[in-house]
Each structure stands twice: as C-alpha cells, then as structure tokens.
C-alpha cells in the first residue's frame, strides 16, 4: 500500500512541475514573440485570462486607491469601513476654490447664530476643522489630519452652502493600498477607483479653475 501511495504522490508532483514548466515556457515563448501586453504577457490565447489575478496584482503595485468627489455622496462609510483606524481617508482643502467665508457651511452646525469657534458651534465631530481670522471678512479653514476621521460631514456642508472646496481624499501616507479596499467594496456610489501612483490625487479646483476666485493659501481675494 505505501508503495502505491508514494507512486501516486510522485506522479502528482511530477504533473505539477510539468504544468509549471509548460506555463513558464509558454509565457517566455509568447513574450519573445513580440506579442506581449503592458505587463509583458500575451493573455489572448489563454482560456483563463478573464479570471487571472496576475494583471490585478501587478496593477496594484503601479496604482493606488483614490476617491472621485464627483461621485461621492458623503455616506459616512469612508470613516467606518477603512481597515485603518482612524480612516486613511481625510478631508482636504482646495484653497484656490474656497471663499474664505465667515459663515462656512462646512464649519458651523446648521442653525448656528453666533459665528464663534465655540465647540458647540462646530459641525466636525472631532474638531478637526480649524478656523482662523485673516482679515475682515475672511477666515481660513485648515484640517488637522490627526483628528480627521474622514466622516465627510464638513464636505457635505461645504458642498451644499459653499463652493465644494472641502473634499475627501485617500491620504497615501496612511493608506495601506489594500488589494481589495474595504471602503471601495462598500461604497454605495462606486466613487473609489484606482489611479496611477504617480498621479494619486483626484481633487478638484487645485488651480484657478474658476475665474474670480483668486484666493491664495492664507491670503485674501485679490
């Protein structure tokens, strides 16, 4: 009996080795043939090309996750679904778009009457959004990333009442670039997408896209 089992085991090992050999041979042969794809492989003849994980794995090394604000509905899952705690998604500020408004819809709770920095007036649940007086009537808003949990509350307020200069973005110094991003899996608006690692931002309005908003970081409209 042991003899038969040993024979079968050897046969299986041999089979796997032969299959691997054939596969690598085919790959080398095809790439030498000059028909290789951007990953160096020609998958066109392969019956398993659709389910193959190799391109995705290679792509993951060249790309990173980012979220597209034009699709995001600020559902709150960026704060609750990231494997990182707090989330790798943070609020970011496109200063060139900001109105430097006194009554900032992203900073103040709806219905706030007296516009002061008192904690009870602040919309942000972690007080991560900071307000600084520049000159009458301009205020600058910055984000303390250590405190921001990426909940998107301020982003929603800014979009509704202001110019949409507060935006959620995946911060790549914190993101683990998971193969399968757990926010992307649960995002109700498919706002998560892979972007080239060398162009990781999908922020809008970083330049002077909208004429007339010449606000500078820390400055005032010209």
């Amino acid at each position, binding site marked *: 009996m042991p003899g038969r089992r040993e024979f079968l085991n050897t046969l299986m090992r041999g089979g796997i080795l032969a299959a691997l050999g054939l596969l690598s041979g085919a790959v080398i042969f095809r790439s030498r043939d000059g028909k290789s794809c951007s990953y160096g492989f020609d998958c066109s003849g392969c019956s398993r090309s659709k389910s193959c994980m190799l391109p995705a794995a290679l792509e993951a090394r060249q790309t990173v996750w980012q979220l597209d604000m034009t699709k995001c509905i600020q559902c709150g*899952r960026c704060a609750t679904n990231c494997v990182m705690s707090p989330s790798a998604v943070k609020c970011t500020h496109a200063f060139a778009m900001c*109105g430097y*408004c006194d009554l900032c819809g992203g900073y103040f709770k709806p219905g*706030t*009457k007296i516009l002061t920095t008192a904690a009870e007036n602040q919309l942000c649940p972690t007080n991560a959004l900071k307000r600084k007086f520049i000159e009458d009537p301009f205020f600058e808003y910055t984000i303390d990333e250590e405190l921001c949990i990426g909940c998107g509350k301020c982003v929603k307020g800014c979009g*509704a*009442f202001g110019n949409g200069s507060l935006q959620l973005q995946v911060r790549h110094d914190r993101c683990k670039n998971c193969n399968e991003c757990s926010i992307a899996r649960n995002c109700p608006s498919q706002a998560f997408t892979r972007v080239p690692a060398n162009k990781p931002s999908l922020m809008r309005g970083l330049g002077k896209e909208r*004429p*007339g908003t010449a606000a500078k970081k820390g400055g005032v409209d010209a």
Partner: protein
Amino acid sequence: MKQKIFIIAGLLLLIAVIGIMFTDLFSGKKQEQTNPYDYKMGEIRKTDSNQTAYTELLTIKPALVEIHAIVNGDGDRIYVAGKNGLEIYKGDGKPDGNFSFEGVASCMAIDKRGKIFIGIQDHVEVFDQIGKPAGKWKSVSPESILTSIAVSNSCVYVADAGKKIVYRYDLNGRLINRIGEKDPQKNVPGFIIPSPYFDLALGKKGELWIANTGRHSLEQFSDEGVLNSAWGEASMAIDGFCGCCNPSHFAFLHDGSFVTSEKGIERVKIYSPKGEFTCIVAPPSAFTEGTRGLDLAVDSKDRIIVLDPERKQVRIFVKK
C-alpha cells in the same frame, strides 16, 4: 446501513451549506448601513407654513436645453434665456416667440425700446425683439463672468462676478465708470463674491442695488459708486441669508419690497423696503435639493416669476 445514514446526513449538510452560501452571495438584500455622521439638512429646510404667503399658480416648461436668466418685459411677456437661445411667453404661459444665438446666456435685461441685452460669459450681446443682432460689446476681461444686467433710461449696469465689479455703460456699450472697485487708498473694501452669483437690480426710484453676497448684504450705490445704504444678515434662520454667498438673486415688488432667492437652503422670500423679513414666497420644500441660480422677475401685477434651472421650469407665484 449505518454508512448510508452517514452519507445521506453528509449530503444534506452539504446541500444546506451550499444553500446558505448561495443565498448569502446572491440574495438582493443589501446590508443596511446608517450613517452615524449624517449631515441632517432636513431640519434646516423646514419652515413654518404660516409664513408662506404665496402659492404656485402656473408652471411653464421652456424647450431650451439650459435656462439661466429671466426678465418680465412689456405687456408682461416673460423672456427666458439660456443655452443657445431665448424664448418668450405670454403671462398665461403660452409661447409668444423665440430666437437662437450662440453661447450660454447667463443674464438678461430689456430696455424701454424693447432691446434685449444678454450677458454671455464675458461680454454683452444686444438683440431686437425678433432676434436680429444689434451689437456685440467688447469683453472687459477673459476672467469676466457676467451675472446680472439692468437697464435704466440712460445706462446699462453689468455685474461681473469674475472681476467682482459692476460696470456702468451708456446704452451703446461705452463704459462710463466702474462701481465697487477695491481701493485700499479710499478704504473701499470691494465686493466679496465667493461664487459666481452677483446680482443687481434697479429699485422703485431707479436706484441701483447690488447683492454683496460674501457679506450677505444688499447694498445701494449711487451711479458714481458711493455706497449709500446696506442691509442683510448672515444666518440659516428664515430672516437671514444662509451659506457662503447669498442672496444669489433679487428683484423688486412695486412697493419697493425686495424679493430674494438663495442657494444652499433654496428659498424665495420677501423683505420690506427697509430690509425686514416679511414672508416666504416658496419654501425649500418647493425646490429640488441642490438647486442653484433661482433668477427672479416680477410682473405688473406683482406676480413673482421664479426661474428654476434644476427642474427647467418657469414658476409663477401669487399671493394666497
């Protein structure tokens, strides 16, 4: 026998496991997730229905692809301008003419002779009543975004949200002077226009009013650019102007009262000539959330005409 029972039990177990996996994978039921960080707009959009003194009488649906500007002309004809054209309606909503032009009209005014002045991005184009071009004024700056026009007997006032300034032209398009230009020497702070909403209108006596939206105020200027008076308060409450830049549009009733519209919390309200809140014309619930650019006009019977670019409608409100 014992073996058979084991095989059958095993098979049943396998079927049950497959069944559970299948339901879990393919059932349409999505996991319900509530948002613990929800920004509750519902509360601030609520109003006291007793404060709404107007009701919607009529809705007109223009055929234009986009609508951005509205004017009430002679004989209470309603002019609607937008992308690549203009449509005219009678006071009862029946079509009464149209013509096309190239570009997106952002604002419009009509003078006593029936000449139609249309702001297209950075310049003004003039048409007669049948759409024959009667002039194309020089662009002031490529950064200009014209957002409002008003015509008096002798001049045309044009608001430029891009340059944050109001130009006063003669009727032929010759620039006379600039109003509200930032001048630190003279201590003139300039207009604060955080987004492209910058309206102006002529009051009961023909005086010029300008919406300084970043300050949430309506300001009255002389033709020479001297600020005479101002009113307005930043607040989400019904008697104030909400968000970063409101009122986005305004018009006048015949007694000099102000009709205002806002973005952020979409609402149309009336203020007395002194700037005291009087009543609501249309509450936020009358609009689709996120609507911006509710241009306003008033006809000879003080009916309030609201341009709703989101629903692509012209909506006429009358007193209840």
